């Protein structure tokens, strides 16, 4: 009851009260209040509060057990180990005794510079090695980067290594073809392959017939390069009819592949032909 009254009284106080009452409020709110502040050691607050705040306000803290950086001089190198070890003895907790040091920014930069000079170079071979699975890998600072590596990564001509997420690339490909390889032609799917071959044969036969009959000058002059709106309209409609036939053939092909009657083209992507995402095979 008294504590609650004090907390309410402290919240209602402003800057115009005496310093004694305000100091009392501070102790009450940190050392003996409810919640998280109650778990904080009171002796740390009272004896070493100023020391803790002075050191913790420094820009860099690191674990002094590993001695990763040069120990700086002067008042800013104040150790916090005394504080924490004393409190760890009070709390019987041996893990509380780690040593923290506050260092200046310049020694940290010097240490980073030394590691950067001693590190390996990042070239295509090192980039390929990055794709390999690793475990407990130590941090690496590369001293230099191959200037052509970025372009090679963007153009996907860099080596990807083996065993990584990306598939291994056997040899560098020309930029003009991009991802296009012979695997893009569906040799393992007879229906589109045979259809494509038949279609190509028909087109070549039609072109050969036009050439043999000598219709190219007429076609070029009267239709292909024509700007007459009626002929352009007719060619638009012929193009639409060709795509209409192709669309219906695609729907028929999808329906045949599904084996369950008429289907639209979108059903194949929705999972009708993919058992891994089909709602029929999904667990209910």
């Amino acid at each position, binding site marked *: 009851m008294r504590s609650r009254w004090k907390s309410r009284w402290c919240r209602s106080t402003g800057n115009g009260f005496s310093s004694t009452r305000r100091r009392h409020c501070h102790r009450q709110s940190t050392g003996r209040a409810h919640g998280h502040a109650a778990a904080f050691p009171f002796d740390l607050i009272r004896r070493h509060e100023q020391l803790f705040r002075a050191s913790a306000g420094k820009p860099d803290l690191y674990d002094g057990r590993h001695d990763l950086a040069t120990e700086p001089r002067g008042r800013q190198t104040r150790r916090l180990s005394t504080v924490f070890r004393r409190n760890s003895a009070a709390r019987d907790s041996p893990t509380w005794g780690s040593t923290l040091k506050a260092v200046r920014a310049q020694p940290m930069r010097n240490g980073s510079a030394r590691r950067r000079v001693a590190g390996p170079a990042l070239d295509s071979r090192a980039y390929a090695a990055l794709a390999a699975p690793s475990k407990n890998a130590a941090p690496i600072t590369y001293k230099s980067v191959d200037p052509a590596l970025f372009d090679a990564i963007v153009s996907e001509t860099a080596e990807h290594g083996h065993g990584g997420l990306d598939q291994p690339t056997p040899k560098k490909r020309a930029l003009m073809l991009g*991802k*296009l390889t012979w695997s*893009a*032609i*569906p040799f393992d799917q007879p229906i*589109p*392959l045979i*259809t*494509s071959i038949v279609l190509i044969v028909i087109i070549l036969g039609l072109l050969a017939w036009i050439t043999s009959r000598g219709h190219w000058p007429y076609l070029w002059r009267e239709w292909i*390069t*024509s*700007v*007459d*709106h*009626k002929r*352009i*309209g*007719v*060619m*638009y*409609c012929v*193009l*639409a*009819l*060709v*795509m*209409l036939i*192709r*669309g219906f053939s*695609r729907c028929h092909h*999808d329906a045949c592949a599904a084996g369950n009657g008429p289907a*639209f*083209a*979108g059903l*194949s*992507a*929705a*999972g009708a032909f993919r058992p891994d*995402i089909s709602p029929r095979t999904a667990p209910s």
Partner: protein
Amino acid sequence: MIFFVAMTFMIGLMNFVVPLQLGVRDVAFPTFNSTSLWLTASAVLLVNMSLFIGEFAQTGWLVYPPLSELKFSPGVGVDYYLWAIQISGIGTLLTGVNFVTTILKMRAPGMTLTRMPIFCWTALAATC
């Protein structure tokens, strides 16, 4: 089916009918008209190439998501379709400019907007 059949057929019909109904000899930009046709034909050729090189986009008539998203269309089919739509879209844009200019600026004397046939109004609304 929508972009390369329905729209293509409607543009062809408008090409044939609208200048005749307006009483003009040709559209405002005849070369643009021819360019639009062959851009559309190039897009059709590109999307048909995906039948036997790569894979065809199995995304339905309108390429709506989620069918066209990466989860349901992980291959290159949607890439083919996107490029084809872009190429065809340039032609459609030229066609729109052509028809709007023709309908608004090249009508025959006496053919006011209120006397204009409803199909020309449809073409004007569709191309705006």
